[in-house]
């Protein structure tokens, strides 16, 4: 029972981590569209997209290392 609870707790923590990373990706994409246009440079948009795409695997990897 304790082992099952422990498994569920660690599974829950992993799920929260994954969800937060995905929510971050969505927020960055949402913000970057208007941000890039407001500042009139495509590089800002591309940079934001890059952060979103590269940030996710990095954050996911960091999560693995912590475990």
């Amino acid at each position, binding site marked *: 029972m304790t082992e099952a609870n422990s498994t569920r707790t660690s599974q829950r923590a992993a*799920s929260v981590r*994954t*969800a937060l990373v995905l*929510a971050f990706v969505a927020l960055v994409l949402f913000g970057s*569209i*208007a941000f890039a*246009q407001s500042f009139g440079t495509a590089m800002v948009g591309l940079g934001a997209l890059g952060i979103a795409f590269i940030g996710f695997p990095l954050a996911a990897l960091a999560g693995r290392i912590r475990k």
Partner: protein
Amino acid sequence: MHTQLTLADDAERLDQPKGILRWLTATNHKDIGTLYLCFSFAMFLVGGLMAMGIRAELFQPGLQLMRPEFFNELTTLHGLIMLFGAFMPALVGFANWQIPMMIGAPDMAFPRLNNFSFWLLPPAAILLVASLFAPGGASGAGWTSYPPLSVQMGPGMDMTIFAIHILGVSSIIGSINIVTTILNMRAPGMTLMKMPMFVWTWLVTAYMIILVMPVLAGAVTMLLTDRHFDTHFFNAAGGGDPALFQHIFWFFGHPEVYIIALPAFGIISQVIPTFARKPLFGYLSMVIATCAIAIISCAVWAHHMFTVGMPVAGQLFFMYTSFLVAVPTGVKVFSWVATMWEGSLSFETPMLFAVGFLFVFVVGGLTGIIMAVAGVDIQLHQTYYIVAHFHYVMAAGSLFAMFAGTYLWLPKWTGHMYDETLGRWHFWLSMIFFNMTFFVMHFLGLAGMPRRIPDYPLQFADLNMIASIGAFGFGLTQLLFLYTVIKCIRGGPKASAQVWDSAKGLEWTLPSPAPHHTFETPPVVA
């Protein structure tokens, strides 16, 4: 696949709230799946009624029933409701019901969030439909909401924008839940490469939603600020660019096609092996093709904009990437046909719809390749050829797959077998009336009939009359589907756990109907 199951006692359900409260506070993935499916079918009927209105007006030339402005409002709402209110929620409903059962999880990763993402949908749907009664009527700018028209419209446009925001938030939350469930909640031994294809397609689809839905939300937010906060993102007079909206919109819009198509592919990949009594041909290539479609579909958006004007290099790029997306799609069609090849085939209703899907989807896919040619597209753009193409791909393609999935899993969901005779009638009438409606539209488009008009020259009268009769028949046939499903829910022959003799997967190890709580102790997948 060896499994060790411990099924929770269904009596626990007695402690759950009863009546409307059960559904309002539902956190069980099966209840929420049912809510999604019921909601999406209701919206399918609402969107379908609007389509009937459109076809009634187009039954003969001249203005018969409605003002041109109202006709535009109907075409706009029909598109938005069908995409965001009917098709996407329906596929999320399938995901909710099936994914936890297929991967051996007790529920979705975030059950309360799951409830929240569903209950965001009804307010959005009310906003969309209620916009018809706003001063100036609903948005008539088309489902694409291109500026400058969308910047100039009345409050109905604001309601549409808010509805899109809410629907987008719901989709993103739902997708986060799905990805998290698939990555973290799989049963021991259920490696990624052992997952059923339906789960794979949803994993990829959910990623796509997370990547492109915020882009749409950003675009309509800029539209909102252009309308009310004096910004000039899309206003040429203020230094903005109306074509920018089209780029951003289609960066969302084309992947949206695959967001609807990929889970449909997943359903077909479950149905065909079941009724061919063979494992899916080329599982690995199917997984790779799914990922390839998702990636390439993010690089084809401007093929919707060949007539807007772009450099030749741009036209060539988007033309070739559009051709390229046909390759992994072709791999999928090949694999389905190869699965059937020399299989021990039987044609129960799910298989009929799966084969029907192959036919309509291939027709839609082939016309898509034709339109990917920039020179041809300039001729066919904004004609009924386009209407025919995307209804073959998105409407019938996905709809037939969803019908196939419903008939496949309905006995598992309800515990009863559906009426096979009614199911077959549903298939054949749908197939005949669908083609009657949309096949003739290819000829209308080739002859030059523009889309989104309530009136047309006399030369298009005969084919429009055929299309309208077909549309009414197709619409009425869906009431037969509703009757068949209700009849199955209320009773019928008892379904066994293994409903179909050669069905494979964890869901078929559960009794029918599936108990309220399943896999509380994870099964072990060998």
